[in-house]
């Protein structure tokens, strides 16, 4: 019986054009044996939820550097719920001020990562979050 592959959507919502972080994460997850769907820059919350629906992913990883996280993240989580995918685990990375983190976690984000995060930590967190979900 083949092992269950973890499928992750790595998405960049909003208007900032820096996706190096997202690509580094995508590569790290790939090297950890996950299947990573990368969607490119400047995605709207609807586009991200739609991609998550079509790809039936276990995890959505968001990268936001623009400061618009408080506006975008709740919208995305709502869209996922509206589509019947409340079971998806949402991770967030980027430049997120300390003061905003608690609020985002309450909105349903599983964990928030800042600059300098060890990618191995992210892989480990995803694996344990997904196996808890299953």
């Amino acid at each position, binding site marked *: 019986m*083949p092992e*269950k*592959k973890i499928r992750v959507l790595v998405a960049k919502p909003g208007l900032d054009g820096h996706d190096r972080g997202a690509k580094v994460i*995508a*590569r790290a*997850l*790939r*090297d*950890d*044996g*996950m*299947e*990573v*769907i*990368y*969607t*490119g820059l400047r*995605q709207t919350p*609807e*586009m991200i939820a*739609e*991609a998550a*629906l*079509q*790809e*039936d992913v276990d995890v959505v990883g968001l990268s936001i550097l623009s400061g618009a996280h408080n506006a975008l993240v709740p919208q995305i989580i709502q869209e996922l719920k509206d*589509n*019947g*995918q409340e079971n998806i685990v949402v991770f967030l990375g980027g430049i997120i001020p300390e003061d905003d983190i608690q609020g985002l976690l309450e909105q349903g984000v599983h964990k928030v990562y800042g600059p300098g995060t060890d990618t191995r930590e992210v892989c480990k967190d995803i694996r344990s979050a997904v196996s808890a979900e299953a």
Partner: protein
Amino acid sequence: MPAELTSELRKGNRLALSRVLSQIEKGSEKSVRILESLFPFTGQAHKIGITGPPGSGKSTLVNALARQLRTLENHPKVAIIAVDPTSPFSGGAILGDRVRMQDLQGDKGIFIRSMASRGALGGLAAQTEMMSQAFDAAAYEYIIIETVGAGQSEVDIVNLAHTTIVVDVPGMGDDIQSIKAGILEIADILVVNKSDQLGADQSVKHLQNMIAMGYRGLRYAGGKHRLSATMPQKQEEVETTGWVPPVLKTVAFDGTGVDKLADEIVKHGKYLKETGLWTQKAESAITDTLRKLIQSTLYQQWRQTIPDEELEDIIIQVLQRTLHPHQAIKQLLSYNKITRN
């Protein structure tokens, strides 16, 4: 649960479809039952394969083509299965085809599914065909299957698709490349993409020459991809030869030539149906599927009859060169009989 998923899928529930696709990809017990119940509703979709070397613009072309197909009469639903390679080392994959397909995301009549090859060779994944059955049963009229970037012999797509499109780009080698066997041979339609670049016309010429050699006695009207209608003495041959792969120029990035490509696909579909080749292709696809299923089923059955130690022992003997693989197979296959007697 499977019965519910099946009926939801048939009703057009896209989340149900997506979950069915995941089950199929996993090869779960559940997916077998789902596929069995969906099977009577399949056989309607026109499956289009797109293959070609990495970086030739397949994803961008699929993006433009899907949009074009949606403008046809009755706005047919379009599914896309995009296959990307799995890393042989980590088992992971980056599926990046969606990056080029962002235009399609607002359209609920288009469903894009990325798929990792998971070790399968031949340009597709093991479950690609079964996934296309799910789309077929969900009333997607066109299913576009984009293979991994293919070299010369990843030709599995031809067993699955009704219409195979091979994408080439200018400057991909001289005319000797175009007479080699393999990927170019399987094309029903040849596309020279990025045709705004230098050397496009030359690439078209090479490909046309290759085709002309394959369809002896036929000539091309200058510059056009259709057979010359002005050669009445060849008319009979034209009829018996059937479909001659057109060579089209496209610039997928801005959509140039994509309308013509869509026309040719529709035309090819009609041609297949009129000549009975549609059924014939379906037949060979089914034969191929059955063969693969038998191989994997028999292998699994056989594998259960042999204890691990026994298999290891024989592998070690082959490793030490005291046993040839042929002899090993003989021993392995007769293992059961020996122990039973």
